[in-house]
């Protein structure tokens, strides 16, 4: 062994040999891993603490499935629905991956609510954990933002109308409402720009924010330490700690396993449907949001006119402020639920209200015969669409032919001449060009019709060398051909 290598070994205190030792001396991987695993948990590992890592797992799964879905997805009003239909109906495992992503979004909300509830009920936001709680609140909003923006992307009836309602709700805000709505939609109406905006938010902006906030959430968590059971002092834990590894990690992994099995079974046995493509002129369609937005949806129904400011802005803002400012409002170090009657009642009240509103919305839909009938019809349309095989979208090149015929009868006659005189043989269909002759697309922009006529009557030396014949045409036929050639775009 060279002296250099000996020095290297001497410099390292680590006795590990082989690849692991080599890596470790360069990265300090072992101490990083130890640092991550040897997180002390006051009072020991518990099932109540598993939701945070459950969320991390779902987030990871959403990233992976999302990246793969983007292999086929195209964010434009023209193609979004076709590409999602292609993923769902044609691509191997496409329906399964889309199902994982779609159900994953719902699972994210469920586990997020559980994580939030555990933190709240255990008083785990107390004791210098204001920023930790705050970053969690922002993450909650970001996850709801992911759900909202992702819902539009398939561009089916359901997605289109739910988002139309969702963005309309924003316009209920006083003063800035209309501007916010226009900003979200990229215009007054929903269209291809709306998809672009939602796509960019869903794929770049919000995920970037989530990455940053998850990092700070974890950092703040490790800085202040695990809060432990609600009998623990939030500032100076006294109960015997247990390391995160191995028992807590096993509990966390059991939730992960449950999520994998649950999401896998749902995606496999209950494929997420795709409805017919969005039809903005459908006046009958009754939009309904995904279950996690139902309480808000129902809530907004109760507020109209001047009072809507209270319902849409004042109450939600106050509630959001109260939640965010919770660690500042509740300064006591008491964590046992039975000693926190106000906090517990508030939690029960909010949860019951959300549940009640959601159920009320479902109840109303079921007991209004007209709505129930329309919803059933929409559902059957979705089933009917899903049972049809995938139909590829007709490319714009195919449609161009029909458009010319409609636009200008002279050009349409010219097209017939172009084809009957075998111009397509070298210049290609629609003048797209071939190895034998250049494309004629855009010729109309470069030359006037007189110039084109002149070139056709007296081809240049270069044209002749390339095998361009002089077409024998009557003046009328020539006019038609030139009109067609000039129209090629």
């Amino acid at each position, binding site marked *: 062994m060279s002296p250099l290598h000996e020095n290297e070994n001497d410099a390292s205190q680590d006795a590990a040999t082989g690849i692991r030792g080599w890596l470790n001396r360069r990265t300090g991987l072992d101490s990083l891993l130890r640092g991550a695993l040897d997180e002390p948990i006051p009072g020991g590992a518990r099932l109540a603490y598993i939701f945070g890592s459950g969320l991390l797992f779902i987030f990871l799964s959403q990233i992976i499935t999302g990246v793969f879905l983007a292999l086929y997805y195209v964010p434009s009003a023209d193609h979004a629905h076709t590409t999602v239909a292609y993923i769902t109906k044609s691509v191997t495992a496409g329906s399964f991956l889309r199902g994982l992503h779609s159900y994953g979004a719902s699972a994210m909300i469920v586990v997020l609510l559980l994580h939030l509830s555990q933190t709240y009920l255990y008083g785990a936001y107390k004791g210098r954990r204001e920023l930790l709680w705050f970053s969690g609140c922002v993450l909650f909003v970001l996850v709801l933002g992911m759900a909202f923006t992702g819902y539009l992307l398939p561009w089916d009836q359901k997605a289109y109308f739910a988002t139309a309602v969702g963005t309309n709700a924003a316009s209920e805000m006083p003063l800035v409402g209309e501007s916010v709505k226009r900003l979200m939609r990229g215009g007054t109406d929903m269209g291809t720009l709306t998809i672009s905006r939602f796509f960019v938010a869903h794929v770049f902006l919000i995920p970037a924010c989530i990455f940053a906030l998850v990092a700070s959430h974890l950092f703040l968590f490790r800085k202040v330490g695990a809060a432990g059971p609600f009998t623990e002092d939030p500032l100076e834990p*006294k109960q015997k700690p247990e390391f995160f590894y191995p028992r807590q990690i096993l509990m966390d992994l059991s939730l992960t396993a449950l999520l994998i099995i649950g999401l896998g079974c749902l995606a496999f046995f209950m494929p997420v449907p795709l409805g017919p493509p969005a039809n903005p002129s459908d006046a009958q369609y009754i939009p309904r949001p995904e279950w996690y937005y139902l309480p808000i949806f129902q809530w907004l129904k109760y507020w109209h006119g001047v009072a809507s400011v209270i319902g849409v802005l004042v109450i939600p803002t106050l509630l959001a402020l109260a939640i965010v400012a919770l660690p500042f409002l509740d300064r006591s170090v008491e964590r046992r639920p039975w000693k926190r009657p106000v906090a517990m009642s508030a939690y029960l009240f909010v949860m019951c209200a959300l549940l009640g509103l959601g159920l009320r919305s479902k109840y109303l839909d079921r007991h209004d015969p007209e709505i129930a009938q329309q919803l059933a019809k929409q559902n059957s349309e979705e089933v009917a669409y899903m049972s049809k095989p995938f139909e590829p979208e007709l490319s714009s090149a195919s449609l161009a032919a029909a458009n010319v015929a409609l636009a200008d009868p002279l050009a349409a006659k010219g097209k017939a001449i172009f084809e009957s005189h075998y111009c397509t*043989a070298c210049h290609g269909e629609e003048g797209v060009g071939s190895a034998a002759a250049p494309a004629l697309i855009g010729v109309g922009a470069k030359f006037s019709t007189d110039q084109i006529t002149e070139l056709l009557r007296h081809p240049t030396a270069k044209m002749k060398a390339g095998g361009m014949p002089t077409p024998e045409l009557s003046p009328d036929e020539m006019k038609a051909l030139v009109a067609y050639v000039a129209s090629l775009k």
Partner: protein
Amino acid sequence: MKIGADDAGNTPRWKFSTAQPFDEQRRSFLGTLLALGSLCVGALLAVPLIRFALFPLLRRTTELKASPVGSLTEFSSLSEPIERTIQIEQVDGWRKAVSEKAVYVTKGAQGQLLVLSSICPHLGCTVPWVSEKREFSCPCHGAVYAPDGARISGPCLRGMDTLETSEQDGQLLVRFQYFRQLVADKEVIG
């Protein structure tokens, strides 16, 4: 109950103080087991992802469907080649392009039905049928072909290209393809 007191009901079964040396061997054995387990589950989950990503490679995503030329009875008593415009549908992933191509339906040496591509195998011009001379004659560089598409004269290196045909419900179907020009043997491209 005083805050910070040990709640006896929830004491973990394996308790150790952070100061105590932990069972390194047991820990690393469990760690290996977990790593292996995660690896297996990860590999299992990667299967649909890989199949999803490889879909275009394992399945034909660009395909040319057979296009109908006409009914067989129409071509039962051909005296000379007749031109037909067929619509070809080319599928490219989730989209398709429909274009029109001219083909000739003619009879071969044994009286069998042939469908010829109208593209000249010399340089790709469209070859018209010249009824008076009973021959195909290319306007570009003068290649001449017999009614069954066989090469008679000119700069071309082979006869006109026959296309793959099939019959279905009394209909003549043809699969349109492009062939390499300027070579003696028929060779599919694109």
